[in-house]
């Protein structure tokens, strides 16, 4: 039976997404415009259809993938700090993107289908390598501190490897740097479709695997005693986490804090099972990145802020505020 509160939040997030989509279609290099007027101007209409709509929808799907990855990571590793960045998967994905781009000799902003699929596969391979290295280094998921430390180390090492590749190709360095700051400016319909397809697959898989996450909340021994095949389920969940992170990173670069903040925001308003938490975190991530994308092109129009920088500022600020508030509450008790 659907939790009424979770149901209401899901509706509200969907409504917000639709509202932001409408706003996103109207915000451009000249600030906010009435899209109804654009229908009379072929160039304006082309801008709405070919640039604003795919980037707005793309921001939503990329955020949804990161929110989903964050919820899966936090459930799988039983750690509220786990997110694609802290587990090495985002760094691995960015290394995979860099390697793919050097191998194919293409720009990170290329929009051809095959290239985007190739880069996405590279990012997926990199993300799964990053998570596996972290797990190997941490010797499992039992020790939270070790897991986080291993994730940070793997992230730094893979990030450095990516930097080395970029330094070896100076012609490629600037565009790669721009891309890795987080960019939705060149998300076209091809990138959008790839992300949407992946989101559907990941959502279905995560939904099916969510009983394992609910079981893990009770502890590993209890989960095993419930008859859950933990090893296989964990492998499948790591694959979902890597696929969601890799696909998002391959299309939009590194977008920080969405994967970490989205599940926290959901949990701050509703306590629910993982099947709903994953869906709600995904919807929340989509709304967060969509809002950040609109802000990034609105605040300094016609210039643009890298969306990853904006999410880091806002998401990081939110988490700092949350920590401060929890500290204040603890002190008063």
């Amino acid at each position, binding site marked *: 039976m659907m939790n009424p509160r979770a149901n209401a939040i899901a509706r509200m997030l969907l409504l917000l997404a639709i509202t932001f989509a409408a706003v996103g279609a109207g915000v*451009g*290099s*000249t600030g906010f415009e009435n899209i109804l007027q654009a229908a009379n101007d072929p*160039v*304006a209409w*082309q*801008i709405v259809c*070919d*640039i*604003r709509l*795919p*980037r707005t929808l793309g921001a939503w799907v990329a955020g949804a993938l990161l929110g989903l990855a964050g919820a899966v990571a936090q459930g799988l590793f039983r750690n509220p700090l786990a997110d694609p960045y802290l587990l090495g998967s985002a760094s691995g994905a960015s290394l995979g993107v860099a390697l793919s781009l050097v191998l194919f*000799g*293409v*720009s990170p*902003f*290329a*929009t*051809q289908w095959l290239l985007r699929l190739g880069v996405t596969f590279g990012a997926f391979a990199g993300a799964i390598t990053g998570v596996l290295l972290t797990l190997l280094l941490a010797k499992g998921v039992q020790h939270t501190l070790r897991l986080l430390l291993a994730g940070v180390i793997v992230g730094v090492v893979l990030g450095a490897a990516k930097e080395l590749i970029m330094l070896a190709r100076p*012609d*490629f360095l*600037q*565009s790669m740097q*721009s891309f890795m700051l987080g*960019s939705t*400016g*060149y*998300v*076209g*319909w091809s990138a959008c479709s790839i992300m949407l397809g992946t989101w559907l697959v990941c959502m279905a898989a995560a939904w099916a695997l969510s009983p394992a996450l609910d079981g893990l909340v009770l502890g590993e021994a209890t989960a095993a005693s419930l008859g859950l095949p933990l090893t296989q389920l964990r492998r499948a969940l790591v694959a979902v986490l890597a696929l969601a992170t890799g696909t998002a990173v391959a299309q939009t670069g590194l977008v920080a804090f969405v994967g970490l903040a989205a599940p926290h925001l959901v949990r701050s308003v509703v306590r629910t099972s993982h099947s709903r938490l994953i869906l709600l975190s995904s919807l929340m991530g989509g709304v967060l990145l969509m809002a950040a994308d609109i802000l990034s*092109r609105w605040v300094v*129009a*016609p*210039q*643009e*802020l*890298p969306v990853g920088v904006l999410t880091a500022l806002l998401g990081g600020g939110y988490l700092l505020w949350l920590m401060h508030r929890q500290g204040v509450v603890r002190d008063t008790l």
Partner: protein
Amino acid sequence: VCLARELKALRPDLSWETDARLTEMDFGHWKGQRWDALDPAERRVLEKLGILLGVNDVQRIWRTIDADISAAARSLPTAAHSARVYFEVNNGPYAAGEASFIGETLARLGVHNIVPASLGSFPKLNPEFVVRANPDLIMVGDYNYIGMEQRPGWSGMRALRDKRVCLFNRDETDMLARPGPRMADGARLMARCIADKLSTITSGTP
């Protein structure tokens, strides 16, 4: 303070910095060492640097460069002066605005830069700004050009549709991207390309 001490130990003849915080630091009495804040994005930076370093004939050298740029501008047909140009520095996309030395050179050549000075020297633009501006000509390094036609919404732009794109190889980009002694060579390179690519406009072909 540590940085100031280390810089002082190096005993430079001239300190050129672009960071205002450095000039605000107390460097004590540095006899014979001059500090100056220069903007590398400015075209006349070369002249200023020559004066500061006490280079002989700096004014003559600068006048020669300046005259060569003027000659490059005169080589362009008058009709090319109405051309609207987009100079892409990086596919972020970062553009060379009117306030940059590249923008100044374009202005000297008499063409119109689509990126106004109010946006700064090298602004990161919303890609749709370029689509809306619909320039007559695009100038870009060959690596950054890869995939430009496939960027969402860009294929319909006049410059891309009519193949009016000046592509610069790495050496040429290197020359264009520095306000050094080869500025006049850069201006000639741009003028040649503008004349070549815009001949279709000036001859009346769309």
